[in-house]
């Protein structure tokens, strides 16, 4: 007789747990406010990434097309997988001395692992994180970027 009651109480308990589970899913079905989906391409205008978001490495330029990079090559040395190449050239400055300035700061986005060592170690804070994240392109070569803009010069206050 005891086994008989156990049989039914087992069924009862089992059904109760199943109904409890269905209570959750059914509850969410009638709560459309809880939907977390972001409608991505439509919300582009309002979608703002966090200001420390690691989108890509950029070199900020001011209005006079001036940057802070001295071409010292510390970022190149610190990069674990060779995503940064720096080409420098000699140039005579206003005082007639030959100085080394950056010719091309080449950044391979396709190889970057976003470890942040280049930005952390840069002695003159020339590079920083950009917040763009739509990096998809049709040609791999487009992922190789030259960070300093053509014709840009170094800011005066930065010591080489």
């Amino acid at each position: 007789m005891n086994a008989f009651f156990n049989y039914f109480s087992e069924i009862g308990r089992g059904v109760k747990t199943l109904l409890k589970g269905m209570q959750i899913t059914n509850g969410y079905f009638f709560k459309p406010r809880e939907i977390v989906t972001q409608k991505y391409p439509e919300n582009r205008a309002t979608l703002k990434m966090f200001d420390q978001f690691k989108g890509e490495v950029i070199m900020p330029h001011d209005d006079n097309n001036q940057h802070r990079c001295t071409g010292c090559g510390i970022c190149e040395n610190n990069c674990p997988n060779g995503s940064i190449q720096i080409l420098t050239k000699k140039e005579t400055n206003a005082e007639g001395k030959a100085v080394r300035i950056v010719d091309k700061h080449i950044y391979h986005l396709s190889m970057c692992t976003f470890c942040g060592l280049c930005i952390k170690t840069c002695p003159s804070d020339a590079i920083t994180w950009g917040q763009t994240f739509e990096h998809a392109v049709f040609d791999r070569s487009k992922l190789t970027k030259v960070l300093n803009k053509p014709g840009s010069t170094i800011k005066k206050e930065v010591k080489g």
Partner: protein
Amino acid sequence: MAFSIYDFSSFTQSIHQLLSGVMSPAWVLVSELVLVGLVFLMFYALLGLALVYLERRVCAFIQNRLGPNRVGPQGIFQTIADLIKLLFKEIFIIKNADKFLFNLAPFIVIIASMMAIGALPFAKGLHAMDFNIGVFYILAVTSLGVVGILLAGWSSNSKYSLLGAMRSGAQIISYELSVGLSMLAIIIFSGSMQLSVIVESQANGWWIFKGHIPAFISFVIFLIAATAETNRGPFDLAEAESELTAGFHTEYSGIRFAFFFLAEYMNMFLAAALATTLFLGGWMPLHFGVDTQFNHIMDFVPPVVWFFGKTFFVIYIIMLFKWTFPRLRIDQLLTLEWKYLLPINLFNIVLIAFLVMMGWHF
């Protein structure tokens, strides 16, 4: 009757007379068959697509997502786009597969489900085949589908498929019993196997209300067993995505896969429609008491709306099962059937027979 304005039999009768006026009786039969066939083909395809869309939306809302919302307003054309994609895909036949059986299997599955749809009473007079053994016919036809699944698993020359097919075989053979026995409960109540008679017998109240607790138990068992029979979660052992990748239809692609997919949804519709017809009064409106104001208002809702409303309610419950519960293991599945559902069902039928004998139901 109050709802005779929605009676379709006069409409079908007028078509019959119109056709009889222009051609011989043999041609009338042929053209009517073609007409009904075309209508059902359209109905089948459209309903299948709608159900796939519905399932995706329902599961998305349950999971705090939006689901398809890109193709068309609210994404309603998503499944049509998917169908077009599936039509364009290559039909892949793997090496050493039994080609004839491999090609045959999806057709058996889809034909089985389509044949059963024909026997459903959608409204008064809207009924393709009204057998006097309608319930029996539906049971017989739906169990044909497992042959297709077994063939698909066997002929695919894939180990995963074979495992899935074997599971499906064991599952359907055992759950067929529960489906049959829970239908038997209503057959005892109404005293007929004809689906239209069963629906008419619920004019003064649905069997789930009239039949007291035994009818409710039958309804629950029918829901569980029918979910198992349609290979849907939590009984989707034949597919078992996380165990067997896709089970019996692992090797199918393109439109053949779509056939299996459609058949699954149509079987779900069939199960829900049968539950509606047998337990929830088919196309009968909801009535409380006799001749009240409420009943008259209910009568103005067309029977087709009643039928589909109830069916979609049952479909929602079946979907909720799938998206809530973990999958059963194969031995637990058989334990559930043979140790729980079947004994309860047998006892329930004896109880119902007793109820009917004493005339204690309404």
